[in-house]
């Protein structure tokens, strides 16, 4: 009995320093940022940078202004940019990483060499990547000159400076779209729980999902963001940034996939081949399902990198080009250039929530899985 308490004490003492540090430097400052985002810090220039700034509590006013203020259109385009960037970046990085991993896994000569070459970009900082790609994507040089080496006319695409926008939609539809997406996720999770042994939980998911879906399909009654339609869409200038980001990170996902591929027992593939599976079928029915967990991990890692992206965009197109801007850039500019600290804090909290939507479900499922084991 005595030994148990001492063990217990040691464990608590060992954990205590890091717990205190985390409590102050992570959760304490998150709390402080949330509080600042609910104040008017910065609106009165006399208080913005005062020794002891007086901050008045204003509730969710800053958030309301960001999502529906006429002057904050840049924030909304930044959010849309971020969503498009994240989707293409994830799909591109996972896809390219998987292809590279499969090619290397097939036992090419000099595998070690290629593995290193593909992995190297990951060792660079985003600032270096950004600077190199900014040069390569200059409209009159770099990538646009490549076709001329093959005797074709020079490329004309304005990689980072294009002002073209496609897939445009009305910002006012965002609540409905979000509701529909969440509803689909809930329905999927609910259906899975229903089919498993958790009928009750499944049912509640399904009911909430259907209600949310119905609200979304009805056009989101009760919520009006803007009194006029505001067109938002995918800026083609983002393509250059997406390319640079994929170039940097696909080597990393390749390494993840390669490790995972090597972990698949050869017996499984052999068994499949004995059963008459073709090469494609082996991948389709044996290898890919086993890559599921590593894909999820990679998505979490890439997801939070992409939602926080700042340095790459800064070094490629600077702080003020609205077509390629993302919320993290705007957060910095609003807080430290315009002295609107409350606005900056509000953008930070929005980013935190976005990252949380990626990470929390993952933590939840993986922690529950561990307990069950």
């Amino acid at each position: 009995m005595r030994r148990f308490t001492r063990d217990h004490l040691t464990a608590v003492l060992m954990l205590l320093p890091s717990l205190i540090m985390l409590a102050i430097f992570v959760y304490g400052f998150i709390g402080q940022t949330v509080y600042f985002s609910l104040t008017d810090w910065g609106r009165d220039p006399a208080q913005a940078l005062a020794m002891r700034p007086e901050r008045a509590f204003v509730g969710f006013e800053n958030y309301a202004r960001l999502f529906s203020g006429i002057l904050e259109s840049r924030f909304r385009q930044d959010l849309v940019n971020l969503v498009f960037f994240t989707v293409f970046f994830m799909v591109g990085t996972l896809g390219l990483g998987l292809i590279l991993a499969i090619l290397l896994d097939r036992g090419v000569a000099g595998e070690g060499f290629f593995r290193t070459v593909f992995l190297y970009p990951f060792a660079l900082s985003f600032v270096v990547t950004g600077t190199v790609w900014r040069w390569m994507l200059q409209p009159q040089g770099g990538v646009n000159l490549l076709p001329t080496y093959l005797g074709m006319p020079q490329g004309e695409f304005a990689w980072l400076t294009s002002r073209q926008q496609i897939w445009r939609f009305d910002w006012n539809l965002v609540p409905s779209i979000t509701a529909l997406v969440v509803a689909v996720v809930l329905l999927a999770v609910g259906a899975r729980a229903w089919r498993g042994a958790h009928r009750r939980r499944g049912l509640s998911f399904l009911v909430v999902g259907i209600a949310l879906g119905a609200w979304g399909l009805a056009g989101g009654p009760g919520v009006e963001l803007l009194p006029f339609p505001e067109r938002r869409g995918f800026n083609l200038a983002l393509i250059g940034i997406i390319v640079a980001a994929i170039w940097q990170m696909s080597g990393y996902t390749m390494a993840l996939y390669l490790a995972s591929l090597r972990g698949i027992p050869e017996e499984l593939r052999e068994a499949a081949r004995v059963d008459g599976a073709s090469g494609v079928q082996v991948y389709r029915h044996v290898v890919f399902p086993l890559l599921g967990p590593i894909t999820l991990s990679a998505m979490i890692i890439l997801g939070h990198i992409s939602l926080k992206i700042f340095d790459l965009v800064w070094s490629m197109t600077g702080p003020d080009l609205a077509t390629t801007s993302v919320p993290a850039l705007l957060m910095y500019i609003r807080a430290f250039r315009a002295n609107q600290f409350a606005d900056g804090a509000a953008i930070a909290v929005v980013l935190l929530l976005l990252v949380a939507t990626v990470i929390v479900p993952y933590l939840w499922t993986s922690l529950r899985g561990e307990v069950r084991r």
Partner: protein
Amino acid sequence: MRRFLAILIAASLTVAAAAEIEIFSWWAGDEGPALEALIEVFEAKYPGVTVDNATVTGGAGVVAKAVLKTRMLGGNPPDSFQVHIGKELIDTWVIADRMEDLTFLFQEEGWFDVFPADLIDLISTADGIWSVPVNIHRSNVMWFVPAKLEEWGISAPETWADFLAICPAIQANGVTPLALAENWTVSHLWESIALAALGPDDYDRLWTGELAFNDPKSVAAFELMNDVLACTNADAAGLSWQQATDRVVDGEAAFNIMGDWAAGYMFTTLGLEPGTGFGWAPSPGTAGVFMVLSDSFGLPKGAPDRENAINWLRVAGSLEGTDAFNPIKGSISPRTDSDMSKYNAYLQSAAADFASDRQVGSLIHGTTANENFMSSFAQVMEILLDTGNPQAAANAAQALALQTGVGR
């Protein structure tokens, strides 16, 4: 033990004798040598005091200002820091009660007699004078290469109407009429165009809140801007201001509107001779008006070494200090008694204009509007570039002016 203490005391005394002051600025790279010249003058005058030259790189101080703000909020001010005169000084730092009044220094050094009164107004409030200007730059300058203009058979336009008239002919030669760079240079172009379209009186009234940005007169400025943008390069957003200047020097573009640090770049970095290698004129429609911006050093409250910080300011505003700094920086001295023989041909002409011209302030370089408006004005320019709708941009500018309290 006693001996150890004695050593400790001796050591701390030597530390105290070798005082160090921290001067915070964004003058690294091309502008670094000018600051170092000023520091040399200081260290010669005050031996025993060394200067910790704390520069943070990044164009127009975009990063340095952020670092400075976090330091000030954290209660860790440098001994003295670089700040643009005008609203950037007053509406950011003075209004927040972070600066010390320097009226005594202006009296002691006799600066009321050598700094122009208009300039002192820009660094003063009813309660005092808040910084020491070290240089004067001009925002509204048009740059070109005289030999190239001759080759194309054109001359520097005196009005924007003239410019728009020759624009198609220049384009027909396969040359960009006006080289433009990334976003802030668009705002920079706008202030020159607005000055031309409104004239100095109405331009000043924009910043006192007497003239609205969506007044028909101001909308005309945005319309003119829109017309001029049609004569610029499509890849502007990807270029730095130096690259836009390079286009003019290389003959790929005819003109460029940029502050006169461009003269410093062409003279010092590219080695071109003022007058023959590159030529200049007031930006179209602004002859007789000098759009001014200026860097200054102030004394933050709670400076670690107040006494030596004041000595630094003495040197920064002195004849010797400004004349060591400015010829290298490529700017003119704010003092009326400077030795013009130390300055190149461009700077001599700028000094003559500064003495005789009407002065107005620059928006994008901190003089006329608070940092919130200045920073968010980039968004107004994006609206204009994106939609090509002058009325929409003007409306956005007015909404922004109301929200950020321009002229309050």
